[in-house]
């Protein structure tokens, strides 16, 4: 589904990604872990097409199609979704109106008509239920005055509505208490299918107790230095990141 080869990226001349290789198949969940500053958020921004970062080498292929030259919106139309660590507040535009705009923009890009409003409403209700979101929440301005938990729930709600092929969840667990974390994880699990894939980016193992990954990768200094299964995450939790750094030196 997603194949990343030898990906190098920099921001303002500072090299951050130094040769990433990653192969993700449909139906899989991959976790990318690593200490602060290792390049985790950069990787998610680069996959989503953030123009602040310059891709200096390598390719990102989605189902064999090269995304490297595409804009963020074109990548979204192809099926990439990024759940933000810090979602942006948009006063005056409700959650419902925002998601309608996004859905219809995606349909338009694919040459489809706007989604009929009864169908839209049905889908919104269904997905809101999945994330235990009530209707009052849907009429509030997007992310304005939302708690950390509400913001993350809203991100996963958008993911549920847009039905991406590849979803990247960037630090979705940060700022969540355990109840909110369970709701969000539960929502994500229900969205897992054999046709889509999910990349979970996290500093801590906590989220991975609820969204169980098929593979775990450790990112350090812009490279994936270790890959394994979910046991690797537990090992990292127990031992911290220092032993990885130690191994690197050796």
């Amino acid at each position, binding site marked *: 589904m997603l194949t990343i080869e030898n990906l190098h990226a920099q921001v303002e001349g500072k090299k951050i990604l130094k040769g990433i290789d990653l192969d993700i198949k449909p139906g899989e969940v991959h976790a990318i872990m690593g200490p602060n500053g290792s390049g985790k958020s950069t990787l998610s921004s680069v996959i989503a097409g953030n123009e602040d970062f310059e891709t200096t080498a390598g390719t990102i292929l989605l189902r064999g199609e090269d995304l490297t030259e595409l804009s963020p919106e074109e990548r979204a139309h192809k099926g990439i979704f990024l759940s933000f660590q810090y979602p942006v507040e948009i006063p005056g535009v409700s959650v419902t*109106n925002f998601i309608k705009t996004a859905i219809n923009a995606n349909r338009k890009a694919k040459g489809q008509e706007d989604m009929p409003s009864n169908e839209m409403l049905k889908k919104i209700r269904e997905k809101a239920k999945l994330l235990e979101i009530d209707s009052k929440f849907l009429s509030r301005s997007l992310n304005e005055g939302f708690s950390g938990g509400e913001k993350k729930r809203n991100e996963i709600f958008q993911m549920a509505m847009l039905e991406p092929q590849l979803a990247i969840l960037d630090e979705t667990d940060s700022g969540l208490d355990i109840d909110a974390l369970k709701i969000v994880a539960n929502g994500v699990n229900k969205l897992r299918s054999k046709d889509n894939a999910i990349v979970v980016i996290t500093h801590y193992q906590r989220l991975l107790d609820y969204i169980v990954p098929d593979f775990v990768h450790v990112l350090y200094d812009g490279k994936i230095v270790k890959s394994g299964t979910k046991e690797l995450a537990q090992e990292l939790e127990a031992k911290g990141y220092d032993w990885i750094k130690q191994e690197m030196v050796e």
Partner: protein
Amino acid sequence: MELKDKLLDSFIAFEEDFVLDEELHQKRIDALKIFESKGFPTKKLEGWKYTSLERLLKKDYILFSKSDNYIDLKDVKKYFLYDVDTYKIVFIDGVYSPFLSDTTHDGIDACLMSAALTKPKYRKLVDTYFNKIADGQDSMTALNTSFTKEGAYIYIPKNTVAQKPIEIVHFATGNEHALWLQPRNLIVVDQNAQVQIIERHQSLKPHELVTNSVTEIYAHKEAYVDYYKLQNDLDTASLIDNTYIAQEKQSNVSVHTFSFGGKLIRNNLNFYHRGEHLNSTLKGITILQAQQHVDHYTLVHHAHPNCESHQDYKGVFSDRSTGVFNGKILVDKIAQKTNAFQQNNNILLDDKTTVNTKPQLEIFADDVKCSHGCTIGQLDEEALFYLKTRGIPHKEAKALLTYAFANNVLESVQLPALKKRINHLIASKLGVNLGFDL
């Protein structure tokens, strides 16, 4: 002939055409002398540094229009707040249109300035209020005063709530190639009375138009006044708006100014406090394109303790449009416990736009809370990226963010029908097709 000379010369014919009694007439003559000695404001004056009238003054204006210009209601219905019932005071090329108007004397007075100035039953009110807070030394105000004749007269008696909003609408037909208008409004809201007023100026086809308007508003003890100025005219029309507001204790006055179109707009908005525990609100949304120019020049004079004022002006500028915000807050020594806030934020969508913003705080009291802030910037890149990752194309993402930026000033609009209308206007000005009902 220079425009100034033309105005001075035409006064003789004007005073014979619209005769007022000696006392009122003397006010017109005194004002004319002020205008004669001061002339039109130039960029040499600190307050007019960024707005030049020069370009406007070169045209040969008709000063008094014919009285038989007719407009069909169906052609102008869209300029009214048609989905709610309102009182209407309507003028066509400066002349009252009984056909388009819906005035009242039932419980309140919403009628004509010319009637108030000449009929004995209004005499006491006119003597008490007319030309009492308008700045006699301001030359544009003085010019208007000297040609006082027509406009809106509104009186809301004690303990009365106006049952419908009042619309003051000025249409310009464009039948004259160049027209100079000088409406004069007087609004008195007595103790514990309430009113909502919407003022609009609209050209129906392109022609040179200058409106030099003066409005005096008196809000008595515990009165509520919400005033909305809708400035969405063609880009051949210019407006110099001089509004003066006197507030007594515990009154609430808000003025919202929506500047979405026009060649040159100057809003002189002055609040004078005459009692304690009152509240003044000044809000504005400016969205300009092409070579339009808007200058907001506000003054809030805190002259009593325990009062609040809130100013929030947002501007969105594209093409070669230019904007000015000059906000003066004056806090007298006696005005302790004043809360005065001022905010002016601007977004420039092109690199050819210019905005000058200047907060001016003069505070002589020591126990006050005053704050001001101004920003001039572009849209937040991170926010744009966020929208784009949802599949929203660059242009729409930009429009959506701009809309959100301007939109939150609308929260304080008390009239839902007007709020909806302004929402639509903002969306259409920004070229947003948001795919949802606003």
